[in-house]
């Protein structure tokens, strides 16, 4: 099904630097051998003698006061080891620190609910027993008396006078609010020929729902006061920053260990409340405790993607289709607690104008809490919501002004020759060719013959539509953007660490600061190292997973935000270069020449002039590590090289909210063809193409795999995946029955194409990729709207469009057009 289209003339910005060696090849993944044999080690596979199983008692109420919690009946049960309640947590820990300025800063978030529950499924107490089943039995015996409070489920009502307040300490449901104003919007309106006004667009809640749910096995070492967590936390560095102060211990008391992680997609970043509860239990009971989250828990009470409302949208457009910018009021729903928020209130600004040359932009952004599951970064985090909005705007403007969506895009896209391109808010788009990507995508879905196909579909009683999704996958954050939310935050720049060492038997050992979840870090790191040290990836042992006590890592280490190919591999390259230098230095001492006379090739250090004169890596490793008598005193090498990769960033300007927020911008341009059955609203994606440009591709097969996966998640989000709540605050899709993710039969045939616009800013010309910017959501929404054109021109106002929504659009197209107007400016 997959068809890869090699572009006629691949774009490589860095002329004269062709990639050779292992980089760019589809070398076999080092991870696969264990995984296909069921020999991977996931957290739930780990056992400890006499370990106890944790079960959480969860709130059935979306909003209630906790009057009492009685654990006595549970404790009477045989082989129940102990319990933990919110009252204990309030004494033993401090609230997790909040990133926001007030009001958000005042919201108190603990490991268990203290005094009040704020979402269905919120943990209220925990019990530990000798078996999983028994722990659940005991949990049923814990009696909690609640006094129900009115729940708040609609973010748009969060600021009403009669709205219930979730966090009384904050005195408001607002976490963070701010106005972003770049260029001159009013002047743009004056300059425009039309202003298109859209009343409201809605980006639904959903999440990537990694197949492995969250969990940990926690051991407490009484002697050292140190916890070891065998877990699947994808961002241990940040997890520890949250957990250590809450537990009132130094950060080195927390050891995170991961090997294999069953997908994360951002959903495993905010596990600290559960982990703190487990740490307290392990210490209290002096016993290893294990918590496994079940699917229903994961859906109701772990992490959703941000839900966002876009209101009072205004778009100034010239009659030739040139769009001058936009104005919008965004209301972001972060659920019951901010946790990783309010970062989502700024992350979107990495892609403020989307793929377009829009210069005048005004965004009034407010984030509020509601009685729903808290959110956390979810693949495409915050940019996806915003990019969906920009793509909706383009298609709505095009259809209202009778313009061709392809032409409008090409007219407004940032042009190839304009890179590096500075956006109105100071971000620098490094490289790309959006129009080329679009052409390839359209070619792949046979856009030229779309009218005939539309007619043919009509003859079968089907409505055919085509849609485009153009997005950016911004990677390698400048954490300085957090200071635009809260000037007191002490985060900026970015970094990642790796060590590469030559061991005593000549084995090359690499440790990473990252926490892989299927992205093939072991493999791509080995590719980079073997090219530099002149050996094969098989000669390179990359330690799987992460161990806080073993691995090199830094404060911003982790696997998130599309950056491994830049930060992770940048660190690996730096460390490998250092080691190569030391190996040459050592070889030159032994061979009695200068380091420049030495080259590394075929697993040996040899004389360039006479390759016969060579030292195998084993000799180098043995000499320094075990057989070093006679080596000069001033030979300062360790053959164990640690390198920190640090992209250059400046602090953004807080007043203007201006600055470069990310290093690289990969491109995803998708095209989608749908057929709708107008009688039922049921539709099918009949043709699909994804074109990717992530600069130099280290491992094309892995890149393509990421494109497939990101697309599948986007198609799920566009069709069935949504987390709606009823008026009582019950989640209506708490499991895979009602939350329908794509199965094999649901996926359309997928065509892929690519170009390579090397990044001028990164060590390998590569760009972070993998999040995909939700291109599939945008493309499906556009295709649906296009297919429905002939049925009263309804506009697609929601990101998720199950059949019933399409049927409503067919039945009452005007309802979707309420408040939609085009005024002459």
């Amino acid at each position: 099904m997959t068809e890869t289209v090699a572009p006629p003339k691949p774009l490589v910005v860095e002329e004269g630097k062709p990639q050779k060696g292992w980089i760019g090849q589809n070398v076999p993944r080092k991870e696969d051998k264990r995984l296909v044999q069921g020999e991977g080690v996931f957290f739930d596979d780990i056992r400890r003698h006499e370990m106890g199983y944790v079960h959480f008692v969860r709130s059935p109420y979306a909003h209630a006061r906790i009057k009492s919690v009685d654990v006595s009946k549970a404790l009477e049960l045989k082989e129940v080891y102990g319990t933990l309640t919110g009252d204990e947590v309030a004494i033993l820990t401090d609230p997790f620190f909040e990133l926001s300025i007030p009001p958000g800063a005042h919201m108190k978030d603990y490991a268990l609910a203290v005094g009040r529950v704020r979402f269905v499924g919120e943990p209220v107490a925990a019990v530990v027993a000798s078996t999983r089943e028994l722990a659940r039995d005991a949990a049923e015996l814990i009696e909690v008396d609640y006094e129900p409070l009115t729940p708040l489920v609609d973010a748009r009502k969060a600021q009403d006078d009669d709205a219930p307040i979730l966090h009384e300490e904050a005195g408001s449901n607002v976490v963070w609010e701010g106005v972003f104003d770049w260029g001159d919007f009013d002047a743009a309106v004056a300059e425009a020929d039309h202003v298109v006004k859209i009343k409201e667009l809605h980006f639904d809640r959903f999440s990537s729902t990694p197949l492995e749910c969250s969990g940990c096995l926690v051991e407490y070492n009484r002697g050292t006061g140190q916890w070891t967590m065998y877990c699947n936390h994808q961002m241990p560095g940040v997890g520890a920053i949250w957990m250590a102060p809450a537990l009132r211990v130094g950060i080195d008391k927390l050891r995170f260990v991961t090997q294999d992680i069953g997908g994360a997609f951002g959903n495993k970043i905010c596990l600290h409340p559960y982990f703190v509860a487990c740490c307290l239990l392990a210490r209290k009971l002096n016993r290893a405790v294990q918590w496994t989250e079940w699917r229903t828990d994961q859906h109701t009470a772990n992490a959703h993607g941000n839900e966002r409302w876009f209101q009072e949208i205004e778009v100034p457009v010239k009659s030739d289709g040139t769009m001058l910018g936009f104005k919008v009021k965004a209301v972001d729903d972060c659920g019951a607690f901010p946790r990783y928020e309010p970062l989502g209130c700024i992350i979107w600004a990495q892609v403020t104008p989307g793929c377009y040359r829009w210069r005048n932009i005004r965004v009034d952004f407010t984030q509020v809490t509601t009685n729903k599951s808290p959110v956390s970064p979810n693949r495409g985090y915050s940019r996806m919501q915003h990019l969906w909005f920009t793509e909706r705007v383009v298609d709505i403007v095009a259809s209202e002004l009778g313009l061709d969506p392809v032409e409008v895009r090409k007219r407004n896209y940032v042009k190839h020759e304009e890179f590096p391109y500075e956006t109105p808010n100071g971000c620098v788009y490094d490289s790309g060719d959006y129009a080329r990507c679009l052409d390839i995508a359209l070619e792949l879905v046979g856009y030229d013959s779309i009218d005939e196909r539309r007619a043919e579909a009509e003859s079968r009683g089907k409505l055919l539509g085509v849609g485009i999704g153009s997005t950016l996958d911004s990677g390698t954050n400048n954490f300085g953007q957090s200071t635009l939310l809260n000037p007191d935050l002490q985060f900026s720049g970015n970094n990642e660490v790796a060590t590469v060492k030559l061991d005593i038997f000549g084995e090359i050992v690499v440790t990473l600061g990252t926490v892989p979840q299927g992205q093939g870090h072991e493999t791509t790191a080995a590719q980079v190292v073997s090219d530099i040290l002149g050996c094969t990836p098989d000669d390179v042992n990359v330690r799987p997973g992460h161990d806080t006590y073993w691995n090199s890592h830094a404060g911003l280490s982790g696997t998130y935000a599309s950056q491994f190919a830049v930060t992770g591999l940048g660190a690996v390259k730096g460390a490998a270069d250092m080691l190569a230098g030391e190996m040459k230095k050592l070889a030159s001492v032994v061979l009695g020449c200068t380091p420049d006379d030495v080259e590394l090739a075929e697993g040996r250090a040899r004389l360039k002039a006479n390759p016969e004169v060579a030292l195998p890596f084993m000799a180098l490793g043995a000499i320094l590590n075990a057989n070093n008598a006679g080596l000069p005193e001033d030979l300062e090498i360790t053959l164990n090289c640690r390198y920190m990769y640090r992209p250059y960033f400046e602090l953004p300007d807080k007043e203007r909210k201006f600055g470069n927020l990310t290093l690289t911008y990969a491109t995803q341009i998708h095209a989608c063809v749908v057929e709708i059955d107008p009688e039922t609203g049921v539709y099918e994606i009949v043709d699909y193409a994804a074109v990717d440009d992530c600069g130099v591709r280290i491992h094309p097969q892995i890149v393509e795999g990421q494109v497939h996966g990101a697309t599948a998640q986007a198609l799920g989000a566009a069709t069935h995946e949504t987390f709606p709540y009823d008026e009582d605050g019950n989640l209506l899709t708490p499991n895979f029955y009602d939350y329908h993710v794509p199965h094999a039969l649901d996926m359309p045939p997928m065509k892929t194409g690519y170009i390579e616009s090397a990044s001028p800013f990164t060590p390998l010309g590569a760009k972070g990729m993998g999040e995909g910017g939700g291109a599939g959501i945008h493309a499906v929404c556009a295709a649906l709207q296009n297919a429905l054109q002939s049925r009263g021109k309804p506009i697609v106002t929601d990101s998720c469009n199950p059949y019933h929504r399409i049927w409503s659009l067919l039945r009452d197209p005007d309802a979707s057009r309420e408040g939609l107007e085009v005024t002459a400016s």
Partner: protein
Amino acid sequence: MKVQGEREFDAPQRIVWEVLNDPARMAKTMPGVESFDIHDERHWSANVKIPLGLGGLRMTVDMEKTEEREPEFANMAIRGNGVGAIMNMATAFHLSEAGTGTHMKWEADVHILGPVGSMGQRVLQPIVNQQVSNVLTALDAQVQEAKAGGGASPSASAADDSEEPAHDSAS
């Protein structure tokens, strides 16, 4: 979830009113009552096992008569508490003479919280409708019994024969 309806009883309004206000009789109209306690004339509680084919759902149910205007109107708040399910229900009925019989207009606002509520949400509405119709059938039976037996109240311990009549149509 709101449910409502109307029903005719072939009995004088006084009898219907008595039945509706006789906890012991009401106990026999509720699905799967296993035990029943009357705290005072406004407060009753019961342990029930609501029969759902795949297995019963156990709940302790507290009822409070929040308002009444004899002999035509009453308002009740019912709160059921079970593992994995909480039911809150506000129900009201209006009685009026209809020839020799009685006309009853009723409405109920049912909220079901907890995992069972979420898991089973796709089947809750049919289940609620079904339980309601069981209750009404049973109520009719009680009214006829009361009419025949001159309204003599049966024993308050409903456990022994709780299976019928409500159970018949639900088993």
